[in-house]
């Protein structure tokens, strides 16, 4: 190799090393610490849709402008991995002061002593504004560990043209379909490679438990000693049996969607393959974004059973870290964020329903545009999800219920086998958490 080439090569290598070291030095630049001054709070939000992030940021700015002595820093969190991230932060004493999460994720944190009991902090206005049953989603033991503020019912998003063409009765919150009628309707809407419904059941547990409440399904039964056991009763079987029959018996539900997530079923709805898809109310935003021009869609209430339109929900919540030295200020910020007018802004940004009764009465949430009114009419039927306060639920869900329900829906096992696995195997799991 000629000497000048070697020298050039070494110079390049040296330059590369210097550049890398320079990068390292840049990276290692010391962070400046906070001096004394106003109280500083960190608010970790899981808002992710553009409008929702904008509303949250604006509200934080408004608070900061009006409260120079209590400054809130907006921190963008992620739904993906939030549980592990919070758990680590709690263990390390570095948790955000104000925490946005879902109520079904709070049990372990609340029982673990990581979240502040809000009973002595909650203002009367907020206590009264949110219905008693909704507070049940954030009550663990004797304490209240979060303020539920947004929630969404599961609804049927339907191809309006196909419903009209078929001549089926269009359900309303006042006159919903029964589960039986729903099965008949989907059968009528099926044929020639088209299906009446597509059930996105990649994660079947939440949908099954929450919709089963309409038929009196409860599954988790708490005894006088406070311990929970699993009993799969007649009410628990109504919804799963309907879906299984749709998939395996009359073929009015598409088998392929059993392994899909909710978003993945939308192209089939737009393309006329499915007449209806059961989705969360907030999925309307994706429908508005992605539906082809001229696609006429509408929101229908989920089928009703012996308990009417009742269904379980896990609202989004705002909690305060037990380690936060400024709990009063944090609650004052939450109170500001959840004033009725602000709650409406948050709800519109997230395409969800507010939990506050005053916010729910706002005319902006009762319009026929995007069927807001249908969802709002369902709000009074929403109850805490059955597994809300059950310790060990995540393990039961992942190890027992998810595979059992997937096998049941696909037709691999029958109702007796499903009941056996949910009850016997499930109670063994729960017992470990309740010793």
């Amino acid at each position, binding site marked *: *190799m000629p000497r000048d080439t070697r020298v050039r090569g070494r110079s390049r290598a040296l330059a590369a*090393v210097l550049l*890398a*070291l320079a*990068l*390292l030095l*840049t*990276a*290692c630049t010391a*962070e400046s610490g906070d001096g004394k001054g106003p109280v500083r709070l*960190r608010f970790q939000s*899981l808002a*992710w*849709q*553009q409008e929702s*992030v904008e509303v949250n940021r604006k509200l934080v700015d408004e608070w900061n402008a009006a409260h120079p002595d209590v400054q809130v820093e*907006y*921190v*963008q969190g*992620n*739904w*993906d*991995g939030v549980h*592990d*991230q919070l*758990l*680590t*932060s709690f*263990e*390390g*004493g*570095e948790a*955000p002061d104000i925490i946005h999460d*879902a109520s079904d994720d709070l049990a372990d944190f609340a029982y673990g002593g990581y979240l502040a009991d809000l009973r002595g902090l909650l203002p009367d206005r907020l206590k009264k504004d949110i219905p008693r049953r909704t507070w049940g989603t954030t009550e663990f033991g004797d304490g209240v560990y979060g303020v539920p503020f947004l929630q969404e019912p599961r609804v049927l998003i339907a191809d309006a043209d196909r419903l009209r063409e078929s001549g089926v009765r269009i359900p309303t919150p006042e006159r919903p379909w029964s589960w039986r009628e729903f099965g008949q309707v989907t059968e009528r809407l099926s044929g020639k490679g088209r299906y009446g419904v597509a059930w996105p059941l*990649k*994660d079947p547990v*939440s949908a099954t438990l929450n919709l089963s409440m309409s038929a009196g399904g409860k599954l988790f039964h708490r005894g006088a000693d406070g311990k929970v056991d699993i009993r799969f009763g007649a009410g628990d079987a109504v919804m799963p049996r309907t879906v299984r029959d749709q998939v395996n018996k009359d073929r009015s539900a598409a088998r392929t969607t059993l392994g899909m*997530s*909710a*978003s*993945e079923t*939308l*192209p*089939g709805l*737009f*393309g*006329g*393959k499915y007449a209806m898809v059961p989705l*969360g109310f*907030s*999925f309307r935003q*994706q429908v508005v*974004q*992605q*539906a*082809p*021009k001229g696609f006429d869609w509408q929101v229908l209430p989920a089928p009703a059973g012996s308990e009417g339109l009742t269904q379980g929900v896990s609202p989004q919540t705002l909690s305060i870290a037990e380690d936060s030295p400024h709990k009063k200020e944090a609650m004052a910020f939450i109170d500001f964020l959840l004033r009725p007018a602000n709650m409406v802004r948050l709800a519109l940004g997230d395409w969800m329903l507010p939990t506050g009764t005053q916010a729910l009465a706002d005319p902006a949430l009762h319009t026929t545009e995007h069927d807001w009114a249908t969802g709002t009419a369902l709000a009074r039927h929403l109850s805490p999800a059955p597994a809300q306060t059950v310790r060990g639920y995540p393990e039961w869900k992942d190890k027992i219920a998810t595979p059992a329900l997937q096998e049941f829906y696909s037709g691999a096992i029958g109702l007796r086998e499903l009941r056996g696995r949910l009850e016997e195997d499930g109670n063994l799991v729960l017992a470990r958490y309740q010793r």
Partner: protein
Amino acid sequence: MSPLLTGRKAGTGRKARTGRATHTSPATRTSPATRAAQYAALLGYLVFLAVPFLWLLSTAFKPARELGSLHPTWIPKDPTLENFRQAFDEQPLLDAAWNSFVTAASASVVAVLLATPLAYTIARRRTLLSRLSTAWVVISQAFPFVLLIIPLFLILKELRLIDSRPGLIMVYVVWALPFALWMLVGYVRAVPPELEEAAAVDGAGRLRTLVFVTAPLLAPGIAATALFAFVSAWNEFFFALVLLKSPEKQTLPVVLTHFLGAEGAADLGPLAAAALLATLPSLVLFAFLQRRITSGLLAGAVKS
């Protein structure tokens, strides 16, 4: 200077080897059918690797209405840059990419600087300690992240390295080191000790031998190891999610999850556009280093 140190002798050896390599035995010659099958398998593998990337590319340029189509096409009917505009509007992607680059580059440099002498020692000195080190390297790969993260978090907190790039770099170095070490030990063992002995005979000291004889032969291995460390740090999500709090320090994989909602909801177009951006540095780096690694591997292929 010794001919060995100037590389002339190595060049001669390479020529001689090339000559020997051309004497292929008829028994090992590949039949046309086998060759065709090999090419078919290679093509299949390339397609398998390329499909996700091409789909990502296609999705990034599709308008929202096409994303919802029941009959998706490979080539967008109405290509748009709207997803990129939206992605950049909604999230600080360039800042996040810079954060990822600084962190990954720093981690890979430090990992290589630490791993190279360690690997040399393990490969050349076959003591009980080196065998134990190798065993530890293998075992350490089996620890799940969730087991490590809380103790790691507490240690970094004591060191005041939570929410700091040096803390994350340190984690990535520790994380990449075992595998980097493992890789480099293999490369060091491939360098014949006779070359170092010859340099010693020619009067070169240990350091000079390491720098001018061993290191150039290890260059492709070092490049490959650095690339591995860079890519693994560039793609890493969980440690970055847990250890960094300030929005301005977040890395690209963490920022990408801001396009995801609960229950599988996703802002697919902007997510694909941002993910495409995230794949580019790795691709560019591979394209840049691939030739050097390959040529270096051949240059270092000395048969003892």
